[in-house]
C-alpha cells in the first residue's frame, strides 16, 4: 500500500523533470565521434586511396552489402577497381571497420541519407571516398608496410630494418 503511494508520488515529481525527447528535425542531434553512421573510404596523408582491396570488409560484412573488385596500378599498389556499398542493406554494425587492415573504411556520425528511390542508396567509390584521413590522421599503409612497391624497396619502410640476406647469415 505504501509502495503504491510512493510510486505515484515519484511519478508526480517527474512533472518537473527535463524532457528527454530531442525534437529531431527542429533540434540537432548530438552524435558522438564514434557513432556508427554513413560509411566512407579515407585517403592517406599523400592523398592516395588507403584501400588495398583485400576483400576483408566484404568478407566480414554480415549482410553482404559491400562489393568490390581488386586491381593493381603501375606502381604495384593494389586498389579497388570499383567499390560499392548498398546502404539499403547495411546494418551499420561496424565490422568492416574492424576488419580493415589499413584504416581505409570508416563509419562516420551521419545518418541523414534517406532517398525516395531505393537504387539511390547504392553508393559507388566516388560517393564513398572523402578527401581527408578520417579518424586516423597521419597513417600511411605503404610507408609502414614491408610490401615492395615502385619507389620503395624492401627495408625502406618506416621503422623497418634492411632485409637479411640468409646466404650471408652463416657463422
Amino acid at each position, binding site marked *: 500500500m505504501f509502495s503504491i503511494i510512493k*510510486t*505515484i508520488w515519484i*511519478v*508526480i515529481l*517527474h*512533472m518537473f*523533470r527535463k*524532457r528527454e525527447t530531442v*525534437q529531431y528535425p527542429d533540434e540537432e542531434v548530438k552524435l558522438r565521434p564514434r557513432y556508427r553512421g554513413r560509411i566512407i573510404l579515407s585517403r592517406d596523408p599523400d592523398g592516395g586511396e588507403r584501400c588495398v582491396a583485400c576483400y576483408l570488409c566484404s568478407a566480414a560484412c554480415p549482410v553482404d552489402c559491400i562489393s568490390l573488385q581488386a586491381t593493381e596500378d603501375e606502381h604495384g599498389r593494389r586498389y579497388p577497381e570499383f567499390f560499392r556499398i548498398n546502404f539499403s542493406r547495411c546494418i551499420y554494425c561496424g565490422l568492416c571497420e574492424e576488419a580493415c587492415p589499413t584504416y581505409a573504411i570508416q563509419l562516420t556520425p551521419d545518418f541523414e541519407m534517406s532517398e525516395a528511390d531505393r537504387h539511390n542508396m547504392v553508393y559507388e567509390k566516388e560517393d564513398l571516398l572523402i578527401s581527408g584521413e578520417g579518424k586516423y590522421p597521419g597513417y600511411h599503409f605503404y610507408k609502414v608496410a614491408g610490401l615492395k612497391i615502385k619507389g620503395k624497396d624492401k627495408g625502406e619502410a618506416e621503422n623497418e630494418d634492411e632485409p637479411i640476406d640468409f646466404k650471408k647469415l652463416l657463422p
Partner: protein
Amino acid sequence: MFELNWSALIAIGVLLGVFTLAPGLIWLERRLLALWQDRYGPNRVGPFGIFQVLADMIKIFFKEDWIPPFADKFVFFIAPGIIMLTVLMSFAVIPVAPGVGVMDINVGVLFFLAMSSLGAYSVVLGGWSSNNKYSLLGGLRAASQMISYEVFMGLSLLGVVAMAGSFNLREIVNAQAGMWNIVPQFFGFVVFMVAGLAEMHRIPFDIPEAESELVAGFHSEYSGMKFGMFFVGEYVGIVLISAVITTFFLGGWHGPFLPPMVWFFLKMFVFICFFILLRASLPRPRFDQLMTWGWKLMLPLAILNLAVTGAVLVAVNQGH
C-alpha cells in the same frame, strides 16, 4: 411543451459535451502521460498537438471495417454499441448543476449501477462472438472482474445513500452542502474509486485487454470504427466515473465563489487527471491478485464501512 424542449436541449448538450470531452481526453491523456514520462507527446498537429485526435479520427473512419468470417456476425456487430449505449445512458442521471441534468429520478443510484453492470455485456459479448481464444479469455476475465467488483461498488455507495437518506442523486448532492462525503465516507470513497477503475477496466485493472498476455483481449478482432467505439466508450467511462465520484463524494456542484457548473467540471477534471496519473504509475496486477483484493480486502472494507455508518447514524438519530 416548453418544459419538454428544455430537457431535450439539455440532453443534446450533455451528449455533445461528452462527445467533445472524450477526444479531448485522449489528447489530455497522451500529453499528461508524456509529461510524467519525461516526453512531449503529440505536439505537431495544431497548437500543442490538439488536432492529432482529429487526424486520428479521420484515419479510423477510413479504415477497413473487417468482420472475421468465423465471428458471430450479429453479436459481433452489436457489442461495441452496448458499451456506448450504457455509458451514455448513465450520464442521464448525473446532476451537473441545480436544474441542469437530463433526468431526475428517485432511484438514480440504482440506475447508474444497473447501467454499469449492463456494460459488462458489451465486453463479454465482444470477446465471445470474436471466436478467438484470446478474445474469449479477455471476455471471461472481464466478466469475472466486473461482476466481483460490481458487488462492493454497490455496497460502498450504500453508506452515501444512508447518509443522504435517498437514492436520488440531486438529494445526495444537496445532503453534502455542509460537508463533502469524502470525509465521513473516506473508506467508501476509496473502495468506490477502485471499483470504478476496475469497472471501466482502466489501466491498473485493464486485465480483460492485457496486451502483454492477450494481444488486445476482448477487442482483438475489432477494427475500424467498431474498435473506435470500444475506445471512445472507455474514455467516456472515465468521464462518467469521475463525474459519479464528484457527485457521490465531492459534493457535486457545491463550492464557494465559483458558479456550480464550474465547480462540478473542476472536480471532475481533477479526478480525470488522477486516473491518468494512476495509469502512468501503477503496473497491472496479476488476475488472481485482482480477485483476492476484490473479495478479501475490498468487500470486507465496504461491509465494515456500511456497518459503521449505519451504527453511527442510528446512534445520532436516537439522540434527537
